């Protein structure tokens, strides 16, 4: 990857920790930035900026790690992102860069989500990829589910709040590597920046900025997902949210969004309709036997079902329903909620 002189300037400035993110962005032209650098760090910035060895080292290092930089000046820089406040000067990327040119749709949610929400998030992300590239973070819970749902199609952009030297959260190491292979990993931070608490809300502006719409699958009253939704509103993008029953902590934020005008989203059609996309006919349900249909109906009544209770209602033995629910689970129609309870997807 070769960069123009000006792009290189941006990459070098981006690598200087002493500069605040806003200062890196305050001017597009590197020389302007040098001039506007605050006096306290002026000497450091000037020294590093004109140090040839340092410049070569930074670029060499990125190259070695297989990181491609898409700078604000690059033709690859996503148009949507240019229109937000404080667009990142440099996007550090790993993976399929073509995804930056596709239509994006972000799906975000809380780390503590209900098992049903996780399963539904995964399902809807698979469907979203028919029209969009899914943009999300990498947190456990809803974000990971979104990644898993979109990963088979490869249309997944995961925006990290740390440099690529770090795998965060550690449990998702495998998932991070898969996204780098099949999809695209993005970070506005140079590789050596560890995950820092205050960078996560800032990162959310990129998720919202890349996307034409944002779906919040779960959010408590104060949730990072709501920050993403707020950014999306600010940038004039569409906001969607899953509806929740009253009293579910991890759904209060979603219901709040809906009260304030977000699109209530029950399924993929609710999203595609807003963008005027061809409403794909819902896929025909796989052929189900009578007992499978009956069990599915039972679970649908309240969205979740307790296996022995279903057996009682259907006047059969619990153990005879175990293969049935397992089959429905394999088909992706229901999900396990723990304690022999099952939820509709």
């Amino acid at each position: 990857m070769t960069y123009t002189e000006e792009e290189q300037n941006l990459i070098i400035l981006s690598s200087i920790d002493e500069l605040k993110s806003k200062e890196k962005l305050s001017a597009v032209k590197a020389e302007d930035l040098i001039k506007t650098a605050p006096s306290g760090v002026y000497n450091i910035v000037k020294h590093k900026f004109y140090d040839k060895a340092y410049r070569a080292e930074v670029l060499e290092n990125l190259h070695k790690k297989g990181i491609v930089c898409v700078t604000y000046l690059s033709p690859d820089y996503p148009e949507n992102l240019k229109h937000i406040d404080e667009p990142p000067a440099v996007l550090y990327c790993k993976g399929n860069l073509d995804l930056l040119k596709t239509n994006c749709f972000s799906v975000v949610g809380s780390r503590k989500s209900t098992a049903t929400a996780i399963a539904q998030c995964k399902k809807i992300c698979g469907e979203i990829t028919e029209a969009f590239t899914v943009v999300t973070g990498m947190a456990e819970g809803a974000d990971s589910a979104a990644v898993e749902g979109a990963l088979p199609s490869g249309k997944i952009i995961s925006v990290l709040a740390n440099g690529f030297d770090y795998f965060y959260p550690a449990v998702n190491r495998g998932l991070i590597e898969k996204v780098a292979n099949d999809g695209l990993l993005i970070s506005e931070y140079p590789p050596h920046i560890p995950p820092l608490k205050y960078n996560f809300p800032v990162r959310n502006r990129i998720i919202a900025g890349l996307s034409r719409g944002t779906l919040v699958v779960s959010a408590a009253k104060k949730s990072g997902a709501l920050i993403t939704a707020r950014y999306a509103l600010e940038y004039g993008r569409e906001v969607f949210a899953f509806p929740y029953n009253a009293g579910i902590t991890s759904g209060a934020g979603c219901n709040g969004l809906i009260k304030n005008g977000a699109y209530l989203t029950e399924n993929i059609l609710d999203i595609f309709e807003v963008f005027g996309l061809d409403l794909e006919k819902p896929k025909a349900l796989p052929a189900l036997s009578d007992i499978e249909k009956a069990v599915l109906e039972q679970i649908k009544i309240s969205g979740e079902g307790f296996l022995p209770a279903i057996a009682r209602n259907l006047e059969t033995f619990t153990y005879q329903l175990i293969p049935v629910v397992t089959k429905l689970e394999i088909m992706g129609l229901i999900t396990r909620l723990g304690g022999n309870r099952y939820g509709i997807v």
Partner: protein
Amino acid sequence: MLSKVTSFALSGLDGIPVEVETDINKGMVSYDLVGLPDTAVKESKERVRSAIKNSRFVFPVNKVTINLAPADVKKEGAHYDLPLAISILIASDQLVADTDFVFLGELALDGALRPVTGLLPILISARDKGFKKFIIPFANANEASYIEGIEIYALHSLRETVDFLTGAVTLTPVAGRSYIATRTAKEYNCDLSLVRGQKVAKRALEIAVAGGHNILLAGPPGTGKTMLARCIPTIMPDMTFEEALEVTKIHSVAGDLGDEGIVALRPFRTPHHTASTVSLCGGGNTRILPGEISKAHKGVLFLDELPEYTRHALESLRQPLEDKVITVTRAGGAVTFPADFILCASMNPCPCGNYGSAYLQCTCTPAQIHKYRSKVSGPLLDRIDLQVEVDGVKYDELISDGKEESSADVKARVERARLIQRERLSDDNMTVNALMGERQIKKYCRLSKECEDILRGAFEAMHLSARARSRIIKVARTIADLELCENIQPEHILEASSYRSMDLK
């Protein structure tokens, strides 16, 4: 004069004949005991001296030399008191009698005979080696009464023993007892019918016992995991006499055999999670004793709160779970104890315990849950064929249709399924499906194309680890046996794959 009396040493579960030779010479008064005696045997000198005196005999005031042959086997335990005393009495001409008896017993200072541990394995070994007549402490009579083909006399004191040997009193041998009668008289104090609801877990228990599979119960606290586990022995087939003797031998060596004399009910062992590796596997410095896993032989080892056990202790279970025996090796030698048990473990689904509960919100982060579950290593989890979630509902909401099956009903089905397995696996010298290796799985568990497809789908949808495959097939085989099906059907594969809920993704 020289005398020779026979006794036995115990090495693991094997008895070794020991000759107690006493020689009394004129000379400086002394008492020398040679032939690798341990502390308890060395101390016998004082007990024997007092017991002889208090039984109205005279302890020789001469040079007494006693040898325990063979000289290279360690002699441990207090059961040499009686043979030592008899041998001294013969050597000092205070007793003239034939000595084709095997003597076992500890002496009190007043000459009374005290019970000894490890008697049963000694008697069985001795019988197999051709010994016919035994003198044992009266308190051990129950334990000995189940062994046929030998003459056992249970006596109260040294004096009585001497009178019996000289013919001054006549005694009848201990009457043989029937194991069947003892077994039918005993009952477990729990029953499946007392557990309300928990249909899924009950079904899983039935499968586990039928196929000899290990089982993990996961669920919120207070949902009846322990109660369910306690019911496992009640649905296992009754122990045969040979099995009961094997189990009794272990408990006899461990010294925790009660008054019953034989372990007629399948053992249910619940070591606390602070248990050390040695207490689980067995060990000891001088005398190697069986651990909890051997005491659970032919029964159930219940590990409550599995992740709380030390990693070291859990990992030590892996090899015995495969081999069904454990070889404890110490500097003094190696001993093999049987350890053929069903492992039943329980755990909370997450650190706060509320994951999967219908009412309480789980407050754990995914990372915490991951960390908690990964305390149980993959290889150990791999050896647990069934992982079941228990119902996370309140007691009064447990679904009960009024007719809870009793343990006896389930046991009947289990016995039927076990019979099928025994016949099928007889060529391979196995009894239950859980023991099958890859070769037997290929031979006896042919899957139809439909089953293969379902299995593949289950792997993708449920994120199962590749190692779970043969486990699922084995469990499916057991389910098919319970349902009296010749071949594994798709629903058996589906059900079996639902019992892998704790697999780490």
